[in-house]
């Protein structure tokens, strides 16, 4: 009750402050009058009476101050007064305000962006019941590892109710739906129930939806698809959605926060029993495809290690080894999109370090500017201390100023982060070729409570970091020194500034070197020799069943704009090719293989360096002819004549699914032997991943459009036809009514797609480096301007004694070079360490870890920046008239 009264009194006092002040004045005057009157009555003279009365009351100002201190509202009031005072002061030095706020805002924005992305992928748990008990099962053998299983393996896992409360399967595919691409997850019937995945409308999938293959054509939509395709129609339940020609009845809509358990958000969920009808692949027969991810919920009290050791998986024959290889299970926590494993930490650590360094550089910069400002305010602070302000009060005032700057910076930083995230995503998607960008699914990157909290802590920490130091420093001086213009501990503050500037130089140099290395690596990879000429060749892949290949090939061959059509088992640059072990004597060489029609070599300009190409008669998968790459010939038969050699291949059973872009790399365990004889040797080319370079060992096998392995087409437009990928649409529509059934991409764009992550990394690296460099330039510039201002007398005396302006400039430049040199030395050391760490994460095949070019670029940039930052202030300091300065200070 008393608290409430006190609060109300305080609020009333805050608002009726003028009246309260007036009343207090009256009351004090009355006290004086009464006291004087009493003294007069005692017989004192009027002057003495008044003096005694005044003594009794004390200084009215002090009494009023004490009275004000009596209520809580004074704290708020003082704070408000501090804020307005700080704002007035800051507004007077707008340049200072703009510099610090921008510097800190950029640093904070960068960290907020990283944290937002990190939070969305790594920290935020899936919106399911008890996400921390969900694990994904991986398998690992001596030579291979993977995370896909057969239906049979899943059945074996589900019976282990002693270990797992439940087990679900999931397999995500990109499928075509009336002109759009949808990411569909094929899941077991217990998926929604076992995970506790929330549904906003209708129901989740149930066991009876997945009781027998092909019986329940139903689907649950994601919130995003519900909004995008159905405009959030509340009557969507019972409507249909088409998926690869199959009509599925919508039975439910998942809540917005649930987007599946894969790395990217899913668009809809379909019973796993629809796998066969939709994808044309049998999961349940005798020869089961290994396509399914298995996720389990651990039983309470069972640890992952226990489950791992007691879970036996029927061994698969792993393809590369070519023999039965014991397989053991591994459990990995899957409560968030990206589990926080040591690998992820290793991958994220350098990224985080780079962003944190930029924030650190920003803080150092702001701190430096604050320090310089606090030093130049010695006189003001000295006078305030002399007028009776306590040291705590002055420190509080300076801290308020810091808080104000940090709050402004925080708000600006959040704004920048929000805009940059949106712009970054748009840029990211637009930089991808259209065919790929439609497949990109990005987790919603929203600012949530956590991001705000994080930013708030970052701001608070920054405030303390850069405001407290100058504040304490500035108040530790005597009035006399301050008024005379001497800073108390000049030497220490100079050292502090030097450390801050040196640190900034070190950070920016390190970041620049890393960025330059990444850029050079990316450029080198993008310009790497492919060994063949993609030219204007277009790649056409079929989504779903490949039975459309002959029809598509025929239709395209009829198109007058097209010169040549070639069929392959997988188009070049679409990921790693399947491999088969080849035994030659005691050696086992893993050889990747590719089925092509005979014109493949002429279309892509791949020279046959020895022997001959496939003859038209050999265009059959049963012909037994093979062309090996030069590397394969060398690996299998070094120094021998390869033509005429015969060897055995274990070939992958064609799965009939060729949506290559979306397919996970997996090893497949069905076998088909083939004995082939070498007829020719082709030049080495890159047919898999650009950054992996030329194929190590490669064998080409012949096929035709009718062939079992024929899954993709390459077409070469007629010269001058200027045929774009989109222009093929009418032709392909004759083959199938769904235009998205075919995925058409110019082959050259696949190089862009493959080098995309590298480009992103070098963009981000360059951006960070540039920001850090700009920060250190502005930091150095500020410090020099300030110190040269302080050294104006010294310079004036030097010049009065006859020093020439260039000599003074040289002196100053030499000093800043020394400062920057020390920083650069640390930076080089640091860059070297970072590169060593980074080389374990990013493949740096094309450039060495200590790339001389990158190091030279970094050093040159920093040196130029330092020279630029120091020349201006140095030059300016020599332009003033010595007489003026010396007179003014006399």
């Amino acid at each position: 009750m008393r608290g409430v009264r006190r609060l109300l009194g305080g609020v009333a006092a805050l608002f009726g402050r003028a009246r309260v002040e007036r009343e207090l004045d009256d009351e004090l005057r009355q006290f004086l009058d009464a006291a004087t009157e009493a003294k007069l009555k005692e017989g004192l003279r009027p002057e003495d009476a008044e003096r005694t009365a005044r003594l009794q009351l004390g200084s009215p100002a002090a009494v009023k101050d004490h009275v004000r201190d009596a209520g809580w509202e004074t704290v708020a009031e003082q704070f408000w007064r501090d804020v307005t005072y700080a704002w007035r002061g800051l507004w007077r030095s707008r340049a200072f305000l703009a510099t610090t706020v921008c510097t800190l805002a950029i640093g904070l924005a960068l960290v907020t962006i990283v944290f937002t992305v990190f939070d969305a992928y790594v920290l935020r748990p899936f919106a399911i019941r008890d996400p921390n008990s969900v694990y994904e099962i991986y398998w690992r053998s001596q030579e291979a590892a993977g995370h896909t299983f057969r239906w049979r393996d899943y059945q074996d896992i589900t019976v282990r109710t002693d270990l797992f409360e439940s087990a679900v399967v999931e397999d995500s595919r990109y499928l075509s739906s009336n002109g759009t691409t949808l990411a569909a997850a094929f899941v077991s019937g217990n998926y929604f129930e076992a995970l506790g995945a929330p549904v906003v409308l209708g129901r989740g999938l149930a066991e009876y939806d997945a009781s027998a293959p092909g019986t329940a054509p139903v689907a649950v939509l994601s919130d995003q698809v519900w909004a995008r395709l159905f405009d959030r129609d509340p009557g969507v339940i019972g409507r249909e959605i088409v998926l690869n020609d199959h009509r599925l009845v919508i039975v439910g809509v998942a809540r917005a926060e649930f987007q599946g358990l894969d790395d990217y958000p899913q668009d809809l969920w379909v019973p796993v029993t629809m796998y066969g009808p939709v994808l044309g692949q049998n999961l349940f027969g005798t020869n089961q495809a290994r396509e399914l991810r298995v996720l389990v919920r651990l039983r309470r009290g069972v640890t992952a290690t226990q489950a791992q050791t007691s879970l036996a998986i029927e061994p698969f024959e792993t393809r590369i080894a070519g023999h039965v290889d014991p397989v053991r299970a591994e459990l990995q926590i899957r409560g968030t999109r990206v589990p926080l494993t040591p690998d992820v930490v290793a991958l994220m650590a350098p990224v985080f370090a780079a962003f944190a360094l930029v924030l650190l550089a920003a803080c150092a910069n702001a701190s430096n500017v604050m320090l310089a400002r606090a030093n130049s305010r010695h006189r003001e602070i000295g006078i305030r201390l002399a007028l009776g302000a306590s040291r705590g009060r002055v420190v509080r005032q300076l801290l308020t100023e810091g808080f104000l700057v940090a709050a402004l910076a925080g708000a600006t930083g959040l704004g920048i982060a929000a805009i940059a995230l949106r712009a970054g995503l748009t840029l990211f998607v637009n930089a991808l070729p259209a065919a790929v960008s439609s497949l990109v699914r990005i987790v919603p990157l929203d600012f949530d409570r956590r991001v705000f909290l994080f930013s708030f802590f970052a701001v608070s920490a920054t405030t303390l970091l850069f405001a407290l130091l100058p504040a304490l420093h500035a108040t530790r001086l005597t009035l006399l020194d301050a008024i005379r213009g001497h800073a108390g501990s000049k030497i220490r503050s100079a050292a502090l500034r030097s450390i801050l500037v040196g640190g900034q130089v070190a950070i920016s140099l390190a970041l620049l070197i890393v960025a330059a290395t990444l850029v050079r690596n990316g450029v080198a990879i993008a310009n790497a020799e492919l060994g063949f000429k993609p030219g204007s060749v277009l790649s056409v892949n079929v989504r779903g069943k490949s039975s459309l290949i002959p029809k598509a090939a025929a239709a395209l061959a009829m198109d007058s704009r097209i010169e040549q059509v070639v069929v392959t088992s997988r188009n070049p640059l679409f990921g790693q090719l399947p491999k088969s072990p080849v035994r030659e004597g005691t050696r086992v060489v893993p050889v990747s293989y590719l089925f092509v029609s005979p014109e493949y070599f002429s279309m892509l300009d791949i020279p046959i360096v020895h022997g001959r190409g496939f003859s038209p008669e050999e265009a059959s998968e049963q012909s037994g002819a093979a062309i090996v790459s030069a590397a394969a010939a060398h690996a299998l038969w070094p120094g021998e004549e390869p033509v005429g050699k015969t060897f055995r291949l274990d070939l992958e059973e064609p799965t009939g699914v060729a949506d290559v872009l979306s397919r996970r790399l997996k090893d497949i365990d069905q076998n088909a032997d083939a004995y082939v004889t070498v007829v020719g040797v082709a030049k080495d080319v890159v047919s898999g991943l650009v950054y992996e370079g030329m194929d190590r060992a490669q064998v080409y096998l012949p096929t035709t459009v009718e062939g079992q392995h024929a899954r993709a087409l390459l077409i070469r437009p007629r010269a001058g036809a200027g045929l774009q990928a989109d222009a093929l649409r009418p032709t392909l529509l004759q083959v199938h009514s769904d235009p998205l059934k075919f995925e058409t991409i110019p082959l050259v764009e696949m190089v862009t797609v493959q080098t995309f992550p590298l480009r992103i990394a070098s963009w981000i690296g360059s951006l960070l480096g540039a920001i850090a460099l700009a920060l250190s330039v502005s930091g150095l510039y500020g410090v020099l301007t300030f110190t040269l201002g302080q050294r104006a007398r010294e310079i004036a005396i030097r010049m009065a004694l006859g020093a020439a302006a260039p000599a003074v400039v040289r002196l100053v430049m030499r000093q800043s070079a020394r400062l920057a040199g020390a920083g650069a030395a640390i930076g080089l050391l640091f860059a070297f360490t970072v590169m060593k760490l980074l080389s374990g994460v990013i493949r740096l095949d094309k450039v060495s870890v200590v790339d001389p070019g990158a190091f030279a670029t970094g050093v040159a940039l920093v040196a130029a920046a330092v020279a630029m930052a120091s020349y201006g202030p140095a030059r300016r300091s020599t332009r003033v008239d010595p007489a003026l300065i010396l007179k003014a200070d006399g």
Partner: protein
Amino acid sequence: MPNEPTPTDLVQGTLHMLILKTLALEPMHGYGIGVRLEQISRGVFQVNGGSLFPALRRLERDGLIKGEWSATENNRRAKYYTLTPAGRATLKRETRDWEVQTAAIARILRASAGEV
């Protein structure tokens, strides 16, 4: 604030109690309170404005006393403070507490070795 009263708290708290006691006798203005305290304590307590007015402000804010402007005996305007019912209750409680405490302290100070 910790439970242990610091010396300032003690003095301040005591001053509050003394002001309440003074006002329990009759309503009074600021100067009058100071004079009365000095008179009753025979000059031991000399209260200056710096402690008196903050104390009055606190008591008023806590609703223990109430100030009103009215005319003095020689026709001047002054702010007269009166005790509110809450103030009366507080004074009663604090007086009792004070007596208990001082009695206890006195016993401790008088204690000789044999009594312990």
